[in-house]
């Protein structure tokens, strides 16, 4: 007698043995008891959850000749025939191999004949999603009103590929993934039956590796038994399942978070020669990082159900110390790299590359902390702190293009609301008001640079030989500008127009720092211009060498 794998030899033969699909089984049992069996059923759900099994039990129950309850007897001729797959009245068809319209036509030919020896003629079509469109359509009429002695049962893992016209003609049952606890219980029962000694932890490990599929778990269990015999140590299980990866995940995560690129590479090397499947590991790693992110944002342990107790504790502990933004960013990189990982010719190399990238990222500053710093800066400024601040220290100078990895600068908002103490703000407000008041004058002075403000005077600098200098120096214009400025500042302010030397533009009252500032601003503005960004993005490796202000060129 040839060996039959556990998943087949332990296939449930009665409704009572089916694991974890109570919602389906109860309905079907009641239907049989009340003689309300539908003419078409559709079973869908993930692999290894019992679709084909339930279809077969249902067929047995419907055709059983000695049934007194809704359970099939599993003894009579009909039941035995169905179990061995030789019944004439129950045909199990592989929908994926017989998927054409011709096969369906043939099936329709045979449907008309009454069953040979049982109550019903039952057609079980497995993998029904693979039928062609024509085949599905050819089935529609028959499916809606089959002869009274015919019952259809469809099983599929991909319900979305079954046309809605088919769905609406069937009673549809959705099979759920089986919980780890139920799988563990099932495996324990098998172990007892086969007289195999295995620790509860071992069973849990196998159940977990099954990922909600009983067949997967049973296959693995089978594999472990083949490997280790009747006395199974936890080490055997780890050897077969290759779950040594847990340790690697934790080490690697730590190394990445610490930014130790070298350590990452060493871990990958060990892992590679230990036979870890890099692509599978990548998925595990992504899942753990997702778990970490979950732990960062939620205290609910149910969301971390897929992890064991130890792992959960570790995630919680880590979540305390790592800023959520950092986790988010790493996870984002992993998810974005998933596609590349799949396509890569050499998965190890691809993974190493990604890890180094992740480990060498600039450390992230949490937004909270950044806001705190800004606020501190703000209070310092308001309390009349240093006037000669350097451009880079000022919060309103986004001196660089925000890189893709950097958090969005929440910088502009708070500064915008600041009252008109900063000369910068005053300058902005002044320009705005002037634009409303007299657009023509504004366009003439808009090229000007704020040289100095304060002490009731605003000095606006223009390049030597600026075209509108004379216009701006007219008393009427000066008068208007001064009025607007006074309104803005809330006190008496005079506006003065000055000519600047091309080279040292910053020879204003307060020296270089203040004079350089607007120039810096113009440059960063130019760099931030959408057009420039677009150009930089389109031409890979393009760079901005210099930003020149127009007047300078027109002057020379």
């Amino acid at each position, binding site marked *: 007698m040839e*060996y*039959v*794998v556990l*998943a*087949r030899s332990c296939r449930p033969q009665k409704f009572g043995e089916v694991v974890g699909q109570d919602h389906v089984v109860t309905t079907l049992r009641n239907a049989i008891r009340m003689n309300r069996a539908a003419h078409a059923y559709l079973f869908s759900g*993930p*692999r*290894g959850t019992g679709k084909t099994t339930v279809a077969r039990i249902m067929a047995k129950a419907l055709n059983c000749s000695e049934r007194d309850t809704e359970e099939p007897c599993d003894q009579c001729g009909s039941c035995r025939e169905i179990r061995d797959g030789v019944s004439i009245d129950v045909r199990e068809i*592989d929908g*994926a*191999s017989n*998927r054409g319209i011709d096969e369906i036509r043939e099936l329709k030919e045979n449907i008309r004949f009454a069953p040979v020896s049982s109550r019903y003629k039952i057609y079980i079509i497995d993998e029904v*999603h*693979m039928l062609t469109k024509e085949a599905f359509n050819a089935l529609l009429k028959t499916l809606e009103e089959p002869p009274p002695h015919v019952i259809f049962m469809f099983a599929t*893992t991909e319900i979305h590929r079954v046309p809605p016209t088919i769905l609406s003609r069937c009673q549809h049952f959705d099979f759920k993934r089986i919980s780890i606890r139920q799988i563990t219980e099932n495996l324990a029962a098998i172990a007892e039956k086969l007289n195999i000694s295995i620790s509860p932890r071992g069973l849990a490990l196998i159940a977990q590796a099954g990922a909600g599929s009983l*067949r*997967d778990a049973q*296959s693995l269990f*089978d*594999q472990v038994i*083949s*490997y*280790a*015999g009747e006395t199974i140590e936890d080490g055997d299980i780890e*050897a077969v399942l*290759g779950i040594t990866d847990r340790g690697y995940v934790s080490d690697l995560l730590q190394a990445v978070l610490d930014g130790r*690129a*070298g*350590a*990452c*590479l*060493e871990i990958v*090397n060990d892992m*590679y*020669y*230990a*036979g*870890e*499947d890099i*692509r*599978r590991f990548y998925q595990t790693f992504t899942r753990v990082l997702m778990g970490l992110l979950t732990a960062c944002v939620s205290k609910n342990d149910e969301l971390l159900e897929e992890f064991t107790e130890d792992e959960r504790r570790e995630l919680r502990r880590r979540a305390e110390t790592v800023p959520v933004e950092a986790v988010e960013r790493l996870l984002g990189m992993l998810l974005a790299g998933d596609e*590349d990982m*799949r*396509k*890569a*010719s*050499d998965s*190890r*190399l691809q993974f*190493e*590359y990604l890890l*180094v990238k992740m480990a*060498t990222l600039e450390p992230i500053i949490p937004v909270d902390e950044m806001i705190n710093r800004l606020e501190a800066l703000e209070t310092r400024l308001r309390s009349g702190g240093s006037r000669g601040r350097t451009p880079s220290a000022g919060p309103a100078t986004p001196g*660089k*293009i925000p*890189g893709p990895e950097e958090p969005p600068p929440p910088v502009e908002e708070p500064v915008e609301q600041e009252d008109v103490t900063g000369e910068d703000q005053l300058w902005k407000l002044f320009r705005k008001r002037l634009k409303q008041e007299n657009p023509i004058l504004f366009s003439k002075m808009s090229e000007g640079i704020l040289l100095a403000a304060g002490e009731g005077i605003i000095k606006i600098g223009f390049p030597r030989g600026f075209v509108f200098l004379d216009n701006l120096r007219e008393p009427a214009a000066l008068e208007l500008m001064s009025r607007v400025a006074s309104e803005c500042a809330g006190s008496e302010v005079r506006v003065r127009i000055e000519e600047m030397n091309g080279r040292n533009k910053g020879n204003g009252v307060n020296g270089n720092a203040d004079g350089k500032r607007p120039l810096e601003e113009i440059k960063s503005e130019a*760099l931030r211009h959408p057009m420039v960004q677009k150009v*930089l993005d389109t031409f890979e*490796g393009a760079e*901005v060498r210099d930003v020149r202000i127009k007047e300078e060129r027109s002057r020379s």
Partner: protein
Amino acid sequence: MNSAMPFSGVYGHERQINFLKNALLRDRVAQAYLFDGMAGVGKKTTALAFARALNCLGTEEETGEFCASCRKIETGNHPDILFVAPDGKFIKIGQIRELARQMCFRPLEGRRRVVIIEEAHAMNDEAANALLKTLEEPAPGNVLILLTSRSEALPRTIASRCQRLRFAPLPASAVEAFLKERRGIGEEESSMLAAASAGCIGRVIDRDPEASRRFEEDILGVLEISGDAGDENPLAPFLVVARFGDDRAAIVEKLELVKEWYRDVLVLHETGREELIIHRDLLNFTRRAADRSTAGRLTRNIECIEAARRAVDRNANSRLVLESMMFKLRQPSTDRRQQAARGS
């Protein structure tokens, strides 16, 4: 039955072989196996050995050589060993149907019919689905062995029906032993090749080491010496592109080499451990480059080569792609855009 003999030709993979032997001894041979591991690591060799063991007549103890069945399998003449391999790019439904038909009959002369499906991930959707029922409940006397180097591309429904054996890369010692015993390659060469194999015999047995080394030295010479020498020929990167050849497959292979080399530089740069390096014959170049590079530049270069590889794979003009790649690879600084934005 003595099952040790048929497996004697496999290097490494002791755990996997033990597993299969145990299954034989305990009479727990499953109907379907999935051998999962990178190309050239020994999956097919092991599958064939398993097929031999399943059908072995057990006479070798008396005669001291392979039995008739094992010999037939060895020479590819056994009627009960079937192979399915991609027809073009895919394994198609017709092949699977034909297979299912053949599997209905009892084995012709052996105990078990062994069906070896190579590159099982190449089954297209129809073929994979058509295999499901056969895979779960084949007629008695059949064993299916699916081989794949990309198990993640295989439908879960297929993997769920198989017992899965993961084939790890071989330790360098096993590769070295293979090269010395089977290929008669000298001590030093073997050890160098063993490192270059990254645990995969298939990677080095078909390679002409001398030719590939010359290629590498040329390319790397241009790439890495360039950095500081201002006086060399500015057209060098374009001239050297010709060394990649015209054949797409060959270009892709060479791009892989260059990429691996940059990986080596990265590894050396980050860890300083020379034993982690794949191409030890290029160690001089690697050391020099590692000293002068930054992680940012190296990852960027790897990215760049990977992009070029894909472009060539997708039928882009390979010469253009390679020229632009070489040009980019030689740029010294890490990210000029950011610099420009920060500075100036």
